[in-house]
């Protein structure tokens, strides 16, 4: 099945495929994973080739591409390698907040640096499992002299150690839920910012994670991004983009798993036959392909739709959950098709499996996300 892409989208897809095929070296990646190193070299190269920040406005170092192009880029990164793909796809996490609501000074300060890889960013959400409630990570208290004090904390922050800029989801004043909603931009080494390493985790070994504590951090008005409507609507818009990016990661991981499984099934011989000749294995591959294509159609449609209207949060949650389920299924079956070799750290299919599960847990509990979807389609019944 062919998906209709514009000439420009095809061009981007082709360029990025050449990049990942040429530059993502399996052995080097396994070494990075073993040493828990961020793929700094690949990140630099990706920036040089303008694969980071494709969605930024041109005057700020980007290419003013839409959501669809961003999805294609992230998909291809993750297809070639789940860990590196997630790392590259999230090195400028939160940039869309600056793009959407930052003023020109903030944009100038951050976007070109992020696009060139001179800066790395991360987002501090509130409790991810309460994110649907919009509970922010921190509270900004006005000091009267035009400055603010920022207090709060966020758990499981990816890339915190490496990020130059923290984009902190915050509310102005303590009285939720009517309080204004904003984002504070912080440098990592600002006084009052403390990182606590959380140690190793199941997957995505190339990115570390931390608990971040913000205590009486002084923030000036210049470092506060105020969404236009000063409300939670803006937060929702950001969440939608975030969900689409995660869906693209899952899509890429799933495609990568199918690529590996197909290659192995066509080559591995048991019982004097290629294992891809056994009907059971063929049907597994068929199921994987069906699932993948249905997911791709959904993710692409959501990305395209994003141009016209931003879609409903519950629908985008649905897109993310569908892509997540597909990635879980495909990485599981791919590992199984590799038999004992699938369990070996020397082959990438093993970390695709762990990464899919890690990304799932990081992106919030399915249970609460389904609550949001159900609320939207069933509503309150009394």
């Amino acid at each position: 099945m062919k998906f209709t892409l514009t000439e420009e989208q095809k061009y981007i897809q082709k360029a990025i495929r050449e990049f990942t095929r040429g530059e993502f070296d399996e052995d080097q990646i396994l070494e990075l994973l073993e040493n828990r190193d961020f793929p700094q070299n690949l990140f630099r190269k990706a920036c040089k080739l303008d694969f980071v920040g494709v969605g930024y406005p041109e005057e700020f170092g980007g290419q003013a591409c839409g959501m669809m192009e961003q999805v294609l880029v992230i998909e291809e990164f993750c297809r070639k390698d789940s860990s590196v793909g997630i790392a590259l796809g999230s090195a400028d996490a939160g940039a869309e907040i600056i793009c959407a609501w930052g003023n020109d000074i903030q944009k100038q300060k951050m976007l070109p640096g992020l696009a060139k890889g001179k800066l790395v960013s991360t987002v501090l959400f509130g409790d991810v499992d309460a994110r649907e409630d919009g509970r922010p990570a921190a509270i900004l208290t006005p000091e009267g002299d035009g400055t603010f004090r920022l207090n709060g904390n966020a758990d499981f922050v990816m890339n915190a150690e490496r990020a130059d800029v923290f984009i902190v989801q915050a509310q102005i004043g303590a009285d939720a839920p009517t309080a204004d909603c904003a984002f504070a931009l912080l440098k990592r080494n600002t006084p009052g910012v403390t990182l606590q390493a959380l140690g190793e985790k199941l997957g995505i070994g190339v990115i570390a994670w931390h608990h971040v504590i913000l205590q009486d951090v002084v923030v000036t008005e210049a470092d506060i991004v105020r969404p236009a409507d000063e409300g939670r609507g803006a937060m929702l818009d950001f969440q939608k983009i975030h969900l689409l990016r995660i869906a693209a990661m899952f899509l890429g991981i799933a495609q990568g798993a199918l690529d590996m499984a197909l290659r192995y099934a066509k080559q591995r011989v048991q019982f004097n036959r290629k294992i891809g000749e056994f009907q059971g294995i063929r049907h597994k591959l068929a199921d994987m392909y069906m699932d993948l294509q249905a997911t791709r159609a959904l993710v692409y449609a959501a990305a395209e739709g994003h141009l016209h209207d931003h879609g409903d949060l519950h629908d985008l949650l649905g897109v993310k959950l569908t892509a997540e389920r597909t990635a879980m299924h495909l990485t599981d079956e791919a590992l199984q098709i590799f038999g004992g070799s699938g369990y070996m750290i020397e082959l990438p299919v093993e970390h695709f499996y762990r990464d899919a599960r890690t990304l799932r847990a990081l992106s919030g509990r399915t249970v609460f996300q389904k609550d949001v979807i159900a609320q939207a389609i069933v509503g309150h019944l009394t």
Partner: protein
Amino acid sequence: MIGTLPEEYLRTKQQIREFVQTDLEPYAEDVEVNNRIPEHILEKMKQRGLFGLTIPKAYGGGGMSKLEFCLVEQELSKTHFAFLDIISLNNGLGSKSIVLDGSEAMKRKYLPQLASGRLISAFALTEPNAGSDAAGITTSAVRQGDHFVLNGMKHFITNAPIADLFIVIAVTDPELRTRGGITAFVVEKGAPGLTIGHVHNTMGMRGAHKSEVIFKDTPVPVENVIGEVGKGFQVAMKTVDDGRMGVASTSLGMAERLLELSIGHAQRTMRNGKPLADSQAIQWMLADMGTEIYSAQAMIYATAAKIDRQEDAALEVAMCKLYASEMVGRVVDKAMEIFGRGGLRKGSTVERMCRDARILRIFEGTAEIHRVIIGRYLLKGKRTAYAAVEKQASGQGGRA
């Protein structure tokens, strides 16, 4: 079901449970981090006789029945997998063939030492080109006077780097293969030309070591043949069949632990002022976990009892392995959902079991091979027991 277990078995189960809680579980993290079981814990396990529970009493073992041993494996699997893995070889794949088919002299020589844990064993069947198709092995054993000379390579062999004793399956007649051309041997560590190759690094099973085993002109005395020359494939398949109940019991034990942990976590974790366990979605996950665990347990106990009655249970054994290993996969998934991001942290049992449980659908016959076996069995009746896979080897493939 538990109510119908003999008193004595329930006592064993309880004793192992206590041993796990007081002696093993405190070291689970140590094993995970350092990738080995501490020496003094191994010593304790040996003193408890854990290495020889299934070996007949006449040879220094515990003489346990299948059912009783399944209960032991179930309880031992509630802590780090390495503890069970190391004893499962001496109780199963590493000794069973000697118990079932070995000569009297061989039994006397090896079984007491396996039972005490003085010797650690490994079972070397799989080769790079012969996994599911075990009959496709090429490691050769050529008779030269009172010796066989072994050449070839095995891989993915559990315990190999620390083993004193290897049960090796090799080809003695390439023409006959499974119809009289495969032979099982006991090979001791230190045999000339026996080397440990690449040590495999795996997703889970830390503390349990696996590696390649290479034979280069390795002489093995004729008296080290297990059973008859040429009957090795049958010897191996009987052993593998026996070991499958171990994989099923392990799956069951791990799943039970995950359920226990999930219940605790759901009760303790608050969201919007209410425990997670108040959520119907979470309750239903726990319900599914518990139901599937019960179902696996019922299958496993019934099948083990059938084996103990000396009835043919090959079909049920395959079903237990298939069902329980897939069941624990589903339980892991739900436990991860219940634990959320905390379940990703190294040091959490859920994170570890997510990686450890994944092997259960692969080794001792993949889930797919089990479906092949069960399907053939249902269609063709009992006598094709483990011949199903063998048949594919000699059948369409056209291996002579």
